[in-house]
């Protein structure tokens, strides 16, 4: 009797869980049919989420989906036991990225690094595909504008535009195999106001990122930006090229990324040209990104 009862419960639970899966798989079939009206096969999941580690990946949200992301970077590991190797300090950034269409994503974010608000646009120009239409790479354009809201207590008159900085990027990625993807990001950062005449308003940089999938739920990522501008100084501190390593862990609905990076900021304007941590001196920040996708449409 007891066994019968537990079997019935088990069947009910199984049905309850499998029903949405069946509906979902029917949707997927329909979408696949639509997508494969021509025999072009588009590559998906070149990267796990819209960011590689700090910088943007080729991925964007599909139409009607919202990605809510909270990112966190602790202090530098070399601050010692007194600061629990950086864990006492917290730097956060949260963002909402929404797919207006399947090829255009808009985003809004706010980080406590210089109390900055940022708006982003990411267009998908080409998608890597095979079959009827062959495209070896995916190409997206990314642009963002950031507005710093720090209190200004200096006597120099400040225009509102001085608080702005802009970023333009060309994201070029290729998924070489199920496991390995690579991305190259030529990047331009413009800062309307810098500290001294020697500091460049324009920064040119070449970024690169890779993903190596270890299991279906676990992937290794790395990211590096080479900064071409000659002067490596930010407010009297030496700056370094940002280098980050991380892992993505997919936990059913969430993507959880843990990383080690030498940059504190989580927006392009901040980590390109303002990274003051040095890997060789232990100027490394532990950090994580948590991403949750909501379907709004």
């Amino acid at each position, binding site marked *: 009797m007891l066994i019968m009862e537990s079997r019935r419960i088990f069947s009910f639970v199984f049905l309850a869980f499998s029903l949405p899966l069946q509906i979902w798989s029917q949707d997927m079939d329909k979408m696949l049919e639509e997508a494969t009206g021509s025999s072009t096969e588009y590559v998906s999941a070149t990267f796990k989420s819209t960011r590689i580690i700090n910088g943007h990946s080729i991925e964007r949200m599909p139409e009607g989906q919202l990605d809510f992301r909270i990112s966190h970077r602790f202090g530098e590991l070399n601050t010692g036991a007194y600061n629990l190797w950086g864990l006492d300090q917290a730097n956060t950034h949260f963002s909402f990225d929404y797919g207006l269409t399947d*090829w*255009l994503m808009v985003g809004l974010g706010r980080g406590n690094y210089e109390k900055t608000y940022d708006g982003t646009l990411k*267009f998908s120009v080409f998608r890597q595909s095979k079959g009827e239409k062959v495209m070896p790479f995916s190409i997206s354009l990314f642009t963002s504008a950031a507005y710093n809201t720090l209190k200004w207590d200096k006597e120099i008159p400040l225009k509102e535009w001085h608080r702005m900085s802009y970023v333009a990027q060309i994201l070029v990625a290729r998924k070489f195999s199920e496991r390995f993807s690579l991305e190259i990001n030529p990047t331009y950062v413009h800062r309307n106001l810098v500290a001294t005449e020697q*500091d460049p308003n324009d920064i040119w940089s070449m970024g690169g990122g890779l993903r190596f999938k270890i299991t279906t739920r676990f992937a290794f990522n790395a990211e590096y930006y080479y900064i071409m501008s000659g002067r490596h100084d930010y407010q009297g501190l030496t700056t370094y090229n940002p280098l980050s390593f991380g892992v993505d862990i997919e936990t059913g609905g969430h993507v959880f990324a843990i990383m080690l990076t030498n940059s504190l900021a989580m927006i392009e304007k901040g980590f390109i040209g303002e990274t003051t941590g040095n890997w060789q001196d232990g100027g490394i920040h532990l950090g994580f990104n948590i991403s949750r996708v909501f379907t709004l449409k």
Partner: protein
Amino acid sequence: MKIPALFTAIFLVCILVSACYYDSEEELQQNGNIQCDTINVTFSLAVKPIMQENCYACHSNTNFTLGGNIKLENYSDVILRLDKIKGAINHSPGFVAMPDGAPKLEACKIKIIEKWIESGSPDN
């Protein structure tokens, strides 16, 4: 749908890019008059501190031999050379540009010294 939206987006980006400034705090400080108070210029509180910072490495009462035996520490010495000081700090033709081996003084500092000379170079 895709093409008009793309043009709108490019248009928006153009607006943002047209709002690009190439400014630095250093430049704004030099150009701005906010800190440049030329209303109540005195020798002891306005002119002498500028000279102390920029001229006395070679023109004080003790090391004037480094600066061609020209002393600029006492009021009585300064008023003998007002035209030369004005020409030197402005890097005017026919004058030896001062401070020697350093960039031209900030615009505000030059303005303060000129204002003091124009107002009759009082010993105040």
